[in-house]
């Protein structure tokens, strides 16, 4: 079973339970449909980072007060800001099936999230190789909405990436990204290679979460 399938199963709340054949078949056909429908796009830029007092971090024109992000970027002189999306077609697919097949919507939604993460991981690997040549090492990906990193920063992030024009990510009045299957993230660049494999679940305090990863 590949990583994205495993992740999709986790997003569906199966935890450590075995998955049934019916759902697994649904997951497989959902990935196939997504691969046909999705129009994946990604963009990134590198900005200077300066960490100020009181958990304030400045990344280019982005000024953030966040304990979690400050910790994540501690010691970094620069950071990658990236945006990625699955495109508008996926949202259309979800709306369509919401009328006829809710089971498929739930599975598609999980698969789309897994597929997007997979896409980011793959791309991040390229960035990692590129940065290695410059003696820089990547910190874990950190997105608005994680911990105390407010989603109100999405606006500036999209502007800094020119993301609406370049890859078609927009913001709603409530600071949510559209298409809904889109992400932005910060990846700190550090001259020190410190093992920080932990990300997401492993650093989260909510240990009773049904979506928690056990690896």
């Amino acid at each position, binding site marked *: 079973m590949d990583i994205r399938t495993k992740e999709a199963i986790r997003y569906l709340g199966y935890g450590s339970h075995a998955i049934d054949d019916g759902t697994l078949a649904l997951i497989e056909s959902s990935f196939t449909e997504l691969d046909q429908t999705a129009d994946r796009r990604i963009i990134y830029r590198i900005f200077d980072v300066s960490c100020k007092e009181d958990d304030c971090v400045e990344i280019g024109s982005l000024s953030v007060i966040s304990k979690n992000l400050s910790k994540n970027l501690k010691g970094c002189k620069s950071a990658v800001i990236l945006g990625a999306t699955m495109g508008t077609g996926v949202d259309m697919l979800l709306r369509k099936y919401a009328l006829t*097949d809710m089971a498929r919507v739930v599975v598609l939604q999980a698969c789309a999230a897994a597929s997007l993460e997979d896409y980011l991981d793959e791309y991040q690997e390229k960035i990692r190789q590129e940065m290695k040549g410059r003696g820089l090492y990547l910190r874990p990906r950190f997105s608005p909405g994680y911990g105390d990193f407010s989603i109100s920063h999405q606006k500036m992030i999209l502007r800094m990436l020119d993301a609406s024009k370049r890859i078609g990510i927009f913001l709603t009045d409530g600071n949510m990204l559209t298409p809904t299957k889109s992400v932005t993230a910060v990846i700190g660049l550090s001259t020190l290679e410190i093992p920080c494999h932990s990300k997401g679940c492993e650093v989260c305090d909510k240990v009773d979460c049904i979506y928690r990863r056990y690896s």
Partner: protein
Amino acid sequence: MLIERLGRELLYFDGGMGTLLQAKGLKPGELPEVWNLTHREELVDIHRQYFDAGSDIVLTNTFGANALKFHDSQYELKEIIDAAVANVKKAATLGVHDNREVYTALDVGPTGKLLKPMGDLEFEDAYKAFKEVMQYGEAAGADLIHIETMSDTYEVKAAILAAKENTKLPVTVTMIFDEKGKLLTGGDVPSVVAMLEGLRVDALGINCGMGPKQMIPILKEIMEYASVPVIVKPNAGLPKQRNGEVYYDVSPEEFADTMNKILELGACAIGGCCGTTPAHIRAMTQMADRRPVRKPKDKEYTMVSSYGRAVVLNRKPVIIGERINPTGKKRFKQALKDHDMDYILKEGIAQQDKGAHILDVNVGLPDIDEVSLMREVVCELQSVTSLPLQIDTVDIKAMEAAMRIYNGKPMINSVNGKKESMDAVFPLVQRYGGTVVALTIDEDGIPQTAEGRIRIAGKIIEEAGKYGIPKKDIVVDVLTMTISSEPGSARVTLDALKGVREKYGVCTVLGVSNISFGLPCRPVINANFYTMALQNGLSAGIINPSSEDMMRSYYSFCALMNYDINCEEYIRQYAGVTGTTGGRNNASVQQAGSESLTLKEAVEKGLKEEAHHAAIELSRTQEPLEIINQYLIPALDVVGKGFEKGTVFLPQLLMSADAAKIAFAVLKDVLAKKGGKTRQKEKVVLATVKGDIHDIGKNIVKVLLENYSFDVIDLGKDVTPEAIVECAVKEDIRLVGLSALMTTTVVSMEETIRLLREKKPDCKVMVGGAVLNQEYADMIGADFYGKDAMQSVYYAQSVFQN
């Protein structure tokens, strides 16, 4: 005059602005539009350099100057635009040395927001934002409006209408395509060209996104469809990154070189976008040397489009799905009366799945507000299907409302040879664009002869010409009469069909199934008449794509006449089907053996086909209500309990819910046939709160509540507290369910609860969503926190038991 020169003389636009501003000190994140006032000299200097380099049309520095994007506490939009226009005019006096006539183009970029249904911006709000800027621009003395870098057909439609309806200026539009020839919102070249030409833009084209080389294939495709002058404004290559900075590296010479090819391909106006400089424009104008150009040839394609695709009627016969229409359909009428949008949308999706290319939309019923319903159905359909729509109504107001809100170039059903009809419909086509069905009937009725009908077609085509509506935008319907009451009428129809094709070369349409009213086994006659009509030149049959007979005629005709290359479609449809009785969908045959499943098992396992089958079988021997109580509800309970215990998971729960839903539908039909009454259902309102666009959780709860016989009023997502309260009061609702995904939107949830308590104190509120927990729910004053969908069902049951 610019309009007279476009397409007759080669015209030069200017080049990039952003990089030059940055070189002069603009910081990332700073609003460039403010510089029109704070750095006038720098702006005038940049514009001057472009005039000096040979540009005829220079854009104002107003790309992001609209009320939705531009927020500055110090400066008003109007001041910015006045200054921006003045800066270009001043630069013209400094930079033009040869007395040539030059133009100030009000540059209009996107709002930076995505329109509904993909985003959250209302079409009319986008329109208002554009209107404001354009009115300032015209008053300030701009010579044309140049709408550019657009990636959404819907937004560009709002901008064009704003320009056309509020100013007298020429309008040119360029959009941003990717290397696959698609917009970021999915539109392709023919769909974009169809819509823009329908909206009567003065020129159209491509800018940004790519360098000149990458634009060549897109330009070729545009030239294949466009009849108006084409503009090309590439970047100086593809964006590259160095130390995190974006740069472009096509040199002026290389740029000019490729622009030469672009002129050879037929562009009439050229310039540059990101990364291009006065040096690029100078090299380009020197290379091009004012060579003569010609407007593209008028194309003869009859096209309709949605935001995502175009359908060309003259390449191969197409199918217009007829099912969204209440005529003779009891269930559909009821859906319209009940405002059952889901039912209507499902009809659309089903026809798409069966192979329709265009969907006819008719929602006319006496005592119904057709204008608002038509507008709503068109919007909703466009959020779930990318098929182009045919707006089918006799109510001119409903027609206009739908044409305005439609994303693309619609098909219009219909106009006829009566003066009154043409006077009403043609101005709408002229304004919004559209391909219009012309019925061959006039003040004297329907002619009994083919010649008579052909004559009326000619009259309509001629009258359309007076409005500038080309022949290709008229699709003639020579009318199908019922042969049981009018013997010989089929022959007249077929002769007329052939006649209009030969005489005018126009595309044709027919409502095929009218032929068989009053006859037994109608599909037999319908399908044969359909084949004959296709053979006589029918371009678009309005048919029921779920009719196996009709689809057989269609696929056979296309295979026989070589419209279906290598019979690929035919084979896809019928491979593995034997003999004359086989259907396209032989899934039920393959699944034989599973038939023995009981209804309870089928629902528990979430098998739809089997549930459907078992429900039909059972209904032969048992009463519907008995079946529901003995099998369906117990099955749902087993699954629900399993879900609670953690042995059944969400997808399985929903598969069972979907299977049960199908069984319920079967039983409902049985009950209706027997004349039995379904009991009054309890109403529950569901909504995702204001600011939140994630509605999956709400939809899950909806499916389950419906299974447990609740009547769910689904208000959708991003719903204001006021709308929720208004509905609760109006419908006298006892339970409202609210969903929110993000911490930031729990605030709207709280506000909704507060308002509900004030206006509808007896109404209970249950809440759910990723960020909520019991503590949070208590804090915002909810009556119940549902940690999952089943809990909401149990709570709803408890509310109505008391």
